[in-house]
């Protein structure tokens, strides 16, 4: 007869207490990360936006959305579409159409970064926390690339079709370009993609990344309250 291993090892802390600790630290960390973001958002977001531009430019070029993307003085982007203006105000005809993507709009995509940081700062703490936070920030950067491509595609659809956005009624520019218009379905999908990336995805992203990078947190929040074996003896 051999000694059986303990199948019910003592739990370090009661689930209820762990959840309260999680909520308290997440709340405090949210305050701290929002304060940090208020001070450093221009610098932090500018770095991410500047680093995203070459990749967006390459992808936009490869997909035929744009020829090149320059940095604008305000920190935003100037998108050279390569589409020729065929009618518009005097002096514009024969020139290439360009689009401005404001820095404010690009920063808006990163507005839920403090939530991600706060959730990651809350317990439980596993190995490689810093690495996981860095991976999450890289995912935010990748999201910035995808969302800005969606924004460029939607602006080009509005410009080429010379019709208001089907989603937010954004008005077309005061000129027309020579290009094949988007089909009705493609025009709607362009609006849907921009709406989803600007107004919906930023709410999911921090929570999804937190759950993916910290699966222990989900286990902690879902653990049933029960008397620990050590306490029941």
């Amino acid at each position, binding site marked *: 007869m051999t000694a059986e291993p303990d199948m019910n090892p003592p739990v370090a802390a009661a689930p209820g207490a762990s959840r309260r600790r999680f909520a308290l630290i997440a709340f405090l960390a949210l305050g701290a990360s*929002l304060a940090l973001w208020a001070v450093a958002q221009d610098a932090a977001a500018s770095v991410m936006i500047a680093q995203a531009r070459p990749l967006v430019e390459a992808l936009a070029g490869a997909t035929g959305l744009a020829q090149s993307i320059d940095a604008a003085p305000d920190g935003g982007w100037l998108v050279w579409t390569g589409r020729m203006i065929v009618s518009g105000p005097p002096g514009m005809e024969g020139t290439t159409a360009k689009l401005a993507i404001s820095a404010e709009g690009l920063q808006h995509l990163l507005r839920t970064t403090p939530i991600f940081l706060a959730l990651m700062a809350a317990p439980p703490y596993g190995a490689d926390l810093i690495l996981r936070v860095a991976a999450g920030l890289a995912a935010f950067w990748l999201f910035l690339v995808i969302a800005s491509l969606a924004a460029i595609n939607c602006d080009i659809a509005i410009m080429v079709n010379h019709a208001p956005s089907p989603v937010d009624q954004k008005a077309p520019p005061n000129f027309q370009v020579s290009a094949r218009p988007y089909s009705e379905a493609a025009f709607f999908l362009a609006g849907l993609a921009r709406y989803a990336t600007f107004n919906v995805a930023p*709410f999911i992203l921090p929570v999804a990344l937190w759950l993916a990078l910290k699966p222990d947190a989900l286990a902690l929040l879902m653990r049933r309250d029960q008397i620990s074996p050590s306490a029941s003896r």
Partner: protein
Amino acid sequence: MRLTLLGLMTTTAAPTPVRPVARKASPGLAFVLTFAALALGGVALMILPSVDQAVVRPFTGLLVDVCAVLLNAFGANVSSNGGVLAFVGAPGAVLVANGCNAVEVCLLLSAAILAWPTTIRARLIGVALCVAAVQAINLARIISLLFLSRYSPSLFDFFHHYVWDAVIVLDAVLVYFFWMRRYGALAGG
């Protein structure tokens, strides 16, 4: 009811008895795919001009009206007009546009609740509970932004874009996990 994406049961036609080959997808994957389909479908429906005119804009106007009623009940002199909530005879006003009505967060929460494998009753309770919780916070958000527009315009943008978005997401996460712990396991999900 348990949702499985590829929960197909197949049998071979061999003469000897064989064990059925069960091929089940991860419940996690099924949840993610169902959630994504519901969320994307909901957003696509919501942005249709007809739905926007018939549902979203009237709902936004209703939020503004409720804010006005609440504030006037506490002695503030405010008026609501469409999506605009404003102090009467004093500076300070907010325009509640699409994107400021928390409809997107409610839609995401509802999609997450409906995608979770539990009973219909638990899902309906979850949708009602979560929408109420998020919209209660959103009313506080609109009212606070109205006062910020009057007394501290420099803080308005930061609170509008960052603080309240963060609070609403945290509120949504907490109420969702509360619902999952309270009701989510009714069907053994």
